[in-house]
């Protein structure tokens, strides 16, 4: 019943032909119209194809699905664009590293069609176009423990979680409104259902969309309509449905008392940086792009980490001084230049990581075990994001569990006078949570988190 109701809602939405902001994208490895039946009961309304035919575009349009032609950076890119326009593509996707002149020529050839650049992170200009996109990402999941960690015995460090959330949140803070991350599954890998769910949720909890891409094995089995493959795809789609059901979450802002001020040009666009390190600490953090630093952006924060002193104007430095003078804690860390200009870079290199680790040590000492808005317990395999509505009456806490097994008995302590709490999830119905007082705040207990869940608190 729930699936039917959602289906109706999304069919209606699809027929309304949403613009790029409402596109739910998938890399589509097929160009036969029959493949479109796989979209039934999913919210997918945007397909990215390399070999677009007029027939396929027409069939998709009948279903209210927008088809975008993927143009690679080849010498005939402009000609390929014209061909895509003739085939009635709804938009053009430039995938790869294109010279500016070629982009301009393609925009001319595309006429009024939207042109989306899915290129290296280093070329990303957050907010410069309606959709900011990259095809570079880490594959979300728990990093395997290395031999050194095993030798260290009980003193070894916690598992690292590979995530794009730091990059995505940093890009949002820098101005990206609609953000796509279009990395593909690792080569020669049959990704598990959980792996796909993590990829969807890793992006979605940060307000972005992962451009769904099937690994070769799943694509082949879906082409044959293998029942297990179709079931897997439907369960992946449940995650897409879940986040698309809640467009209001994209309008919420980060909650918490810790602000990180960082220059988008100096490391924000690489994964494994300070935001990802804080994420593993489970402290709620508000990324602020240094060009946008203002007293308003710092409102409600009690701790601020200034990662790039050199990037601030005198006025902005004064804002931080005033912040500290008001009794708040400011951590100015030494400049640690990060070269994110190389097109093949996705993560920090070893020396950058070492410098960031030094920053992290100071940040970690500053945070300690304080409750900076939300504190989570028993969440070693989980990353979270706490978002607050504009009126401050609703707080949501996304929990994404990167393990391939559910995590049980999660405890959440939160600041704020919230009266009602519920647990939502893509694979479970809404469940009321009991709020109880704690020493410094209030808390709720969550029995189990599968791949993803959301706590919604209301005043």
């Amino acid at each position, binding site marked *: 019943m729930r699936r039917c109701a959602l289906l109706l809602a999304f069919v209606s939405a699809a027929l309304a032909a949403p613009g790029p902001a409402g596109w739910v994208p998938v890399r589509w490895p097929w160009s036969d119209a029959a493949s479109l039946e796989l979209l039934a009961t999913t919210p997918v309304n945007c397909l990215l194809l390399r070999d677009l035919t007029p027939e396929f575009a027409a069939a998709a349009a009948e279903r209210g699905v927008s088809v975008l032609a993927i143009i690679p950076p080849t010498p005939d890119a402009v000609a390929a664009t014209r061909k895509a326009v003739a085939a009635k593509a709804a938009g053009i996707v430039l995938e790869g590293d294109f010279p500016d002149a070629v982009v301009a020529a393609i925009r001319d050839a595309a006429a009024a069609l939207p042109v989306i650049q899915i290129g290296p992170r280093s070329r990303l200009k957050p907010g410069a176009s309606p959709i900011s996109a990259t095809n570079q990402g880490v594959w979300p999941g728990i990093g395997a423990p290395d031999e050194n960690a095993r030798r260290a015995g009980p003193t070894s460090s916690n598992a690292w979680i590979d995530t794009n959330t730091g990059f995505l949140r940093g890009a949002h803070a820098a101005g990206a409104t609609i953000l796509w991350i279009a990395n593909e599954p690792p080569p020669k890998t049959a990704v598990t259902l959980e792996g796909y769910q993590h990829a969807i949720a890793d992006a979605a909890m940060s307000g972005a969309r992962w451009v769904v891409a099937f690994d070769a094995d799943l694509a082949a089995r879906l082409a044959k309509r293998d029942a297990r493959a179709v079931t897997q795809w439907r369960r992946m789609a449940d995650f897409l449905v879940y986040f698309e059901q809640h467009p209001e979450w994209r309008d919420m802002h980060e909650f918490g008392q810790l602000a990180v001020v960082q220059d988008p040009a100096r490391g924000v666009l690489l994964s494994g940086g300070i935001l990802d390190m804080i994420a593993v600490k489970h402290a709620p953090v508000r990324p602020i792009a240094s060009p946008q630093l203002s007293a308003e952006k710092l409102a409600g924060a009690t701790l601020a980490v200034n990662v790039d002193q050199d990037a601030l104007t005198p006025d902005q430095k004064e804002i931080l001084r005033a912040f500290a003078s008001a009794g708040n804690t400011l951590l100015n860390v030494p400049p640690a230049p990060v070269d994110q200009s190389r097109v093949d870079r996705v993560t920090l290199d070893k020396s950058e990581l070492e410098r960031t680790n030094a920053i992290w040590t100071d940040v970690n000492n500053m945070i300690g075990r304080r409750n900076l808005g939300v504190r989570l317990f028993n969440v070693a395999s989980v990353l979270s994001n706490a978002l607050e509505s504009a009126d401050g009456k609703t707080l949501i806490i996304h929990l994404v569990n990167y393990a391939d097994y559910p995590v049980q008995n999660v405890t959440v302590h939160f600041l704020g006078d919230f009266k009602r709490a519920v647990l939502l999830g893509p694979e479970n119905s809404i469940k009321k949570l009991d709020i109880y007082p704690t020493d410094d705040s209030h808390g709720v*207990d969550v029995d189990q988190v599968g791949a993803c869940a959301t706590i919604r608190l209301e005043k």
Partner: protein
Amino acid sequence: MTRREWIALISSAPLLSAAEPDAPAAPVSIAKCASYDEDVTAQLNAMFDQLGGIEKLVRNKTVTIKVNMTGSPSQRVGGRAPAVTHYTHPKLLGAAAHLFGRAGAKRVRFVESSWATAGPLEDTMLDSGWNVRSLQSAFSAVEFENTNAIGKGKKYARFRVPGSAYMYPAYDLNHSYEDTDVYVSMAKLKNHDTCGITLSCKNVFGTIPASIYGDDAGVEEPNEKPGAGRMRVGHQGIRQPAKSAPQELHFGVNHDAGYRVPHIVADLVAARPIHLAIIDGVETIAGGEGPWIRNVRPVKPGVLIAGLNPVCTDAVAAAVMGYNPRAERGVAPFEKCDNILRLAEAHGVGTTDLKRIDVRGLSLERALYRFSA
């Protein structure tokens, strides 16, 4: 070899290698408990009755229970909750607190030196997926203390090793180990990579605070914000503890963890006597003490073991695991280490002679669960 033959063999072992004839003996109770879903409180209560009752031990007393929460709570064996692998299970903690309260205890204090932090023990418990509120409600006066640093005390308590100490003349511990009338070691039935077995004696290695004995302990004074383990002082002997504490007697002579850790543990159980040993063998792991050891495997021996002497209790527990509690170094489970139990026995803590130990409840034969694959 049948179960009966095995037990007969290990019971006769002291004839081959003489036990300390004067080491005290005390009864040990074994109970079947196949699952934590069973009535753990009733099982434990029956075991206490078999030991002669606990009222005279705990009435109007402060009872401190050292639990086993080794390593970071984020480290898991195959994603399982730590309580069903390498931590003592919170249901056992709750049951013990309830029974001690019912027997008239003044307060029950749970203690452990949480890995690499001086933060509240409750936080570590929450990070382990434990319901702290439920533990608090087990009895009206339940407290928690992380003993990895000075904690809620004003100074460290010094415990001298009686007689001839093996490693250190005395140990500086958190005040909780002194400010108590009754000291309980609540351990897990499991192997240990360095010491062969982790039972109620080995459990007390976790009492030494990382603030003094940790890798990042202060040189002169304790570091009250420890962020590391105790490898360099305890296992490797490549640095001394903070100078505020008694120093190692023969520093630099021995760096073999298989020698050092058992000797330190034997010193500790002699210096700070344990009044009651409780061992959780319901669900646990074999092959090592935690997820950082390769090839540990979850096992379900389905037993609880308790006794009034830690060496006697551990001797019985070792036998339950299929080991000779008096085995020499080189023989399983002590292939690469000295035998903690024999070292503690030599300190006069308790006997390892199974023939002198009165096993009550479930027989050794019926409780036998071989840990070696």
